[in-house]
Each structure stands twice: as structure tokens, then as C-alpha cells.
């Protein structure tokens, strides 16, 4: 099976000038298949076995997590207060003793995050209006993920209810925000890995 086409999101001009390598990339994906659940739970268990305290401590020095930490500093977030997505997952793994399953979609997003260090979010594709992008809100300079209708989420924040996938969702849009310095191959791997996990459990 060939890889699905990736959509390069727009970056507002001022933002692109400030952070030249910042990217938002998305892909349309099918809704999660229940049949993928057992394979995903197995992958989470395997990842739990491979991921120990020493790795969690050293994580911040690995290239991709380090790029997100630096970007967090650049946008006024303290990664020791608001954890980067992969560090939050690592901490959760240590506290709970394993990566816990929360359903096919969340499991696929988590597997992709832990394997690549790149966070992926899911939207209800039918509720997204026009292409996705990143912009700074006038006045506050707050950076948001937005479509033609307005903000969808604060950068690295929760998705607004209007675009969250639900029972009636027919198609997903997976998107990721690549911090400057994150190699393109990791970004593609995160999205394709998540896409595959949703359809086949990986």
C-alpha cells in the first residue's frame, strides 16, 4: 500500500520569519478500526517494557525531544512546567508503570509519539474548514493552530470541541507540528505510523 499524501500547512508570514523551520503537516486518515485494538495494546505493552526510568531521564538529550524543549523555551513555555508531549508520555509511563490503553485512536497517537518523539493530534476532518495552519493571534501574540473558521487549538494544547473527533466522525485529519530542527523523516514517520496503526494496528 502506498503512503497517503501529506498536506503542508500554511504558516503565517510573521511566524515563518521568526521560526523559519516551523512546520504543520497533516494527513487524512480513516476512522479507527476496532480490529486494530489488540495489536495496538500489544505495541503499548512492548513499548512499556522498552521504556525505563533511565531512558526517561536521558530523553531530554535526544535530538527530537531536545528540539521540542528548545522550541518550548522559544515560545515562552517552560518544558519543566508544561511538559513536551513525549516527556509527558514518559512521565505518565513512570507514574503508572506502563503506557495505558485509552481506545484505538488515543493508543495510535501515543504509539506514534513514543516511537518518534513527534506529537500527533486528530481532528474530525469534516469539521475542519479549509487548510490548517499556524498563526499568532493579533494583540496577544498567542500561537494557535487554525483553519479558515478560526483557532482550533493553542499550539501544543487541547483541540477545541468543534473539531474533536466523535461518534459521528467519518474521517480523521491527523496533524503534527514540527519544531525547528526536527528532521522531516521523523515527521513523516509519525503521521504514517499513526495512519497505519489506525487501520491495521501497526
Amino acid at each position, binding site marked *: 500500500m502506498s503512503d497517503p499524501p501529506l498536506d503542508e500547512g500554511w504558516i503565517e508570514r*510573521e*511566524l515563518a*520569519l*521568526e521560526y523559519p523551520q516551523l512546520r504543520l503537516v497533516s494527513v487524512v486518515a480513516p476512522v479507527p478500526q476496532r480490529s486494530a485494538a489488540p495489536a495496538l495494546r500489544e505495541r503499548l505493552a512492548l513499548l512499556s517494557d522498552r521504556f525505563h526510568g533511565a531512558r526517561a*531521564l*536521558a530523553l*531530554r*538529550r535526544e535530538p527530537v525531544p*531536545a528540539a521540542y*524543549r*528548545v522550541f518550548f*523555551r*522559544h*515560545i*515562552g*513555555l*517552560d518544558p*519543566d*512546567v*508544561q511538559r513536551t508531549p513525549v516527556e509527558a508520555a514518559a512521565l505518565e509511563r513512570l507514574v503508572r508503570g506502563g503506557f495505558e490503553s485509552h481506545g484505538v485512536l488515543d493508543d495510535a497517537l501515543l504509539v506514534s509519539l513514543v516511537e518518534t518523539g513527534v506529537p500527533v493530534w486528530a481532528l474530525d476532518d469534516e469539521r475542519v474548514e479549509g487548510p490548517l495552519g499556524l498563526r*499568532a493571534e493579533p494583540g*496577544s*501574540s*498567542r*500561537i494557535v493552530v487554525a483553519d479558515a473558521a478560526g483557532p482550533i487549538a*493553542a*499550539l*501544543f*494544547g487541547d483541540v477545541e470541541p468543534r473539531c474533536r473527533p466523535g461518534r459521528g466522525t467519518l474521517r480523521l485529519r491527523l496533524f503534527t507540528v514540527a519544531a525547528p530542527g526536527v528532521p522531516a523523516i521523523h515527521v513523516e514517520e509519525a503521521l504514517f505510523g499513526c495512519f497505519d496503526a489506525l487501520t491495521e494496528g501497526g
Partner: protein
Amino acid sequence: MLDVRVVVDERAARTELRRQIAGLEAQLSAAVAEGVPASPLAAARGPRVLDLGELERVRDALAARVADARADLRERHEREEANRALLERMLLEPGRYKFARVANRDLGEPGCGVWQVRPRLGLIGMLMGWWQVKLSSGCPLQN
């Protein structure tokens, strides 16, 4: 014309500050990986494009944190070095360091072992001046 130049210069300054912040973050991460506890710098106000002043404050706070971390590490290395020297002396002349203890932790080593100067054969050793260094076994069992 003047305005345009000012904007460009500020952007260059912000880029330079971001470069410095990246370097400091790498140094701080290295220190944390060596065991210095991570501690928050300031309350976050959400993801924003930081202006020059805000970037300077982030850079300065990180620089101070890195300096503290280096001081912590230097102090710890000096303490561990002193403990290693003490252990060497204990091993060479146990009789001069009766009942002295050095834990692996104090040497920067993993595990719960403790080096201790003890009399050979208990009371007889104490009376005869027969001293030896013993390494206790591992960590106590968890309940």
C-alpha cells in the same frame, strides 16, 4: 527607511537570543542527565511569540539556572573525590579509620553498598587491632 532597519535588527537580535537559549537548554539538559534536579524557571503564559525583552529574560533565567547547576555538579564532584580519597586511605590503613563508613552513593556510584572499616573476628579483632574494610551487600528488600 529607518523603521525597516530597526525591525530587521530586532529580528536578528531575537534570532541570536534564541540561539543562546538553545545552547543553554542543552547545557541544562546535560546537567539534569547528570543528576541535578530539574526545576521550573517561571510560570508559563501559553505559547506566544516572545519579544526581545521576554527572550532576554528567558535567556538570563536559563543562564542563572545553568550556573547553579554547574555549581551543584562541581560541589558534588569535589565531595565524591574527597570520599574516593578517604576510601583509598581506609583500604590502605584500615586501623587508622576505625568504623569509618563510605556509601557507594557518596562516591557517585549506583547501588546501596557501604564500605565500612570493621574489626576482623569482632571483639577479638578490636582488642588485637585487626581491622578490615568490608563492603555491605545491596539494597534492603522492599516491603
